[in-house]
């Protein structure tokens, strides 16, 4: 009996490894690149334009009414994005929709913020550098200590690996005086000195209240940020940008996206519909005239153009054929009953997640079950004693089929 169990232990391991690697090999062998449209809003045409790899593998530049362009013509439709190229060609207009422009002006008034699914689950170490945000120097210097927030805010001096009591007490008392409830649920910032200035951290306390915390001239600058009581924050992305319009983005559990404005920490809700942060990339492109919000994934790219107050002026939805929808993707769902994913889109952790491929896979399972019985019959082998092999094939399809055929049964004692 134990020897039989041992054989099935080997089979389980074969199935696990096959369920990770066979779908991977399948895609490596048969996967095709998908041709996704890249959509922008052209202030010249007052309409959307897009580029997409055509059937012949050549990039095509088009507008929505079917007009097609060369790459240079296309870039002239997008003067804010390609200002430097246009200037080099001597075709940068002096004004766009009445707004006088120069390359310098355009570059100062462009901003791009993104939110990608894999940011949502990122392995990390919960220690953060708190920069001096009102430094006398032009570059940001790393502090001598990193902070953590447990039952209080603690600064640990790197050189000695000990807690700096003065700073810890200073910040903890300041936070407590503002009603901060320890420990922190989320600490969001931009812990790099490769940024033009520092805005510190946005910290969610244990009661879901949001605070802005930074250091100014060695002193704590802490501000509680008013937010709707029912707003359940999932993720915060902070980006220091010289335009100083907003500190960053808030993603809520309800898949809404808010901007945290410099103007009195007002929260501005972006007009997203059917946004799925676990599957879709989000981008916010701000140019001197408009803001373009774009979110794409699962074969759909949705683009919204808004005015300065984020009211929608125009919107566009385009589709592309995903690999899952192509023949290669549909056949996969018949061939394999499930797979084990070690990497998933919304995470940079390593997983071992079971993904069921749906009822189509029953065809594959049935096929391999019949094939298995056929082989047994052809080899004139009895199934009787090894009826569990059938269970293995019936529950794991091609994986179990390969496993029970490779690790053949034995005449048992």
């Amino acid at each position: 009996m134990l020897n039989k169990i041992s054989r099935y232990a080997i089979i389980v391991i074969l199935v696990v490894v096959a369920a990770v690697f066979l779908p991977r090999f399948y895609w490596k062998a048969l996967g095709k690149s998908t041709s996704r449209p890249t959509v922008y809003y052209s202030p010249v045409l007052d309409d959307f334009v897009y580029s997409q790899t055509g059937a012949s593998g050549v990039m095509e530049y088009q507008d929505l009414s079917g007009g097609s362009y060369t790459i240079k013509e296309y870039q002239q439709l997008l003067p804010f994005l390609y200002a430097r190229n246009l200037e080099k060609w001597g075709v940068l207009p002096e004004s766009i929709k009445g707004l006088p422009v120069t390359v310098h002006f355009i570059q100062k008034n462009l901003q791009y913020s993104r939110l990608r699914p894999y940011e949502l689950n990122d392995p990390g170490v919960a220690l953060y550098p708190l920069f001096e945000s009102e430094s006398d120097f032009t570059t940001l210097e790393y502090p001598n200590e990193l902070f953590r927030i447990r039952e209080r805010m603690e600064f640990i001096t790197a050189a000695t690996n000990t807690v700096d009591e003065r700073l810890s007490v200073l910040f903890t008392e300041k936070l407590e005086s503002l009603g901060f409830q320890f420990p922190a649920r989320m600490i969001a910032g931009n812990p790099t000195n490769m940024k033009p200035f520092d805005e510190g951290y946005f910290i969610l306390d244990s009661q879901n209240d949001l605070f802005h915390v930074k250091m100014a001239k060695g002193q704590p600058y802490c501000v509680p940020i008013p937010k709707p009581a029912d707003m359940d924050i999932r993720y915060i992305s902070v980006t220091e940008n010289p335009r100083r319009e907003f500190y960053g983005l808030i993603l809520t559990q309800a898949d809404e996206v808010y901007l945290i404005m410099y103007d009195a920490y007002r929260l501005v809700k972006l007009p997203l519909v059917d946004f799925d942060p676990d599957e879709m990339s989000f981008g916010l492109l701000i140019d001197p005239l408009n803001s373009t919000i774009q979110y794409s994934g699962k074969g759909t790219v949705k683009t919204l153009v808004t005015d300065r107050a984020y009211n929608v002026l125009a919107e566009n939805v385009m589709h592309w054929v995903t690999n899952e929808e192509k023949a290669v993707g549909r056949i996969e769902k018949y061939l394999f009953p499930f797979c084990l994913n070690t990497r998933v889109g919304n995470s940079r952790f390593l997983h071992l997640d079971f993904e069921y491929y749906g009822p189509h896979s029953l065809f594959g399972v049935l096929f391999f079950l019949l094939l298995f019985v056929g082989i047994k019959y052809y080899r004139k082998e009895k199934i009787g004693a090894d009826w569990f092999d059938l269970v293995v094939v019936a529950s794991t399809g091609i994986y179990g089929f390969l496993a029970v055929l490779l690790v053949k049964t034995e005449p048992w004692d």
Partner: protein
Amino acid sequence: MIKAIFYKEWLKIRWAFIALVLASIFAIIYICLDVRQSFEMSGALRNWLQVVLRKNMYYSAFRYIPAVSGIVIGIFQFVPEVSKKRLRLAFHLPVDERKSLFLMELVGITANLIVYLLLAIGLLGFSRMYFPAEIVNSTFITILPWILAGFVGYMATAMIALEPSLLLRIVYAVVSYGFMQLLYAGTFLNQFQHSIGKYGIVTAIYLLTVLFPGYRFRRGAK
């Protein structure tokens, strides 16, 4: 009788085991000196930031040591048994064949465990002097899959050595290599934080795999 089996196993692996213990001590000293030098040259903060911001693993020299240990102990334990089919003698002892295989495995697992504990305690112990608790915890989580890979390496070696058929040896080798690849898939720290349990379960299933090739060996299967 059981004591005798333990003694026989110990005789087979003792030199390999002692060499691995020494190599582990050497490896830990090497990592310590490496970190010390790095702290001396670029300061503590920069080293902390390498971990916190870049997610670097200052202990990457640790990575393959458990797997090497597992495979070496597996070879020293099982290859002599299958050359000239010595294991067949053990199967004539008045101890159940499966019991003797499990006892052999127990000795190998214990020897590996001692090596891994030595490595882990050494690494984490000295990390505590240089790094705050958050970093030490991440170090612990990050080395766990490498330690699992060590056990898998050991049990796979036992399976492959005992298996009489070349085809199945290749199958076991390819599959075990594939599973170890998954355990080595991490490129920065903490990536197995949520899944280490699942990988641990698959590794635990490996404990049972030694019996089937052992049974085939006794039967003289082809």
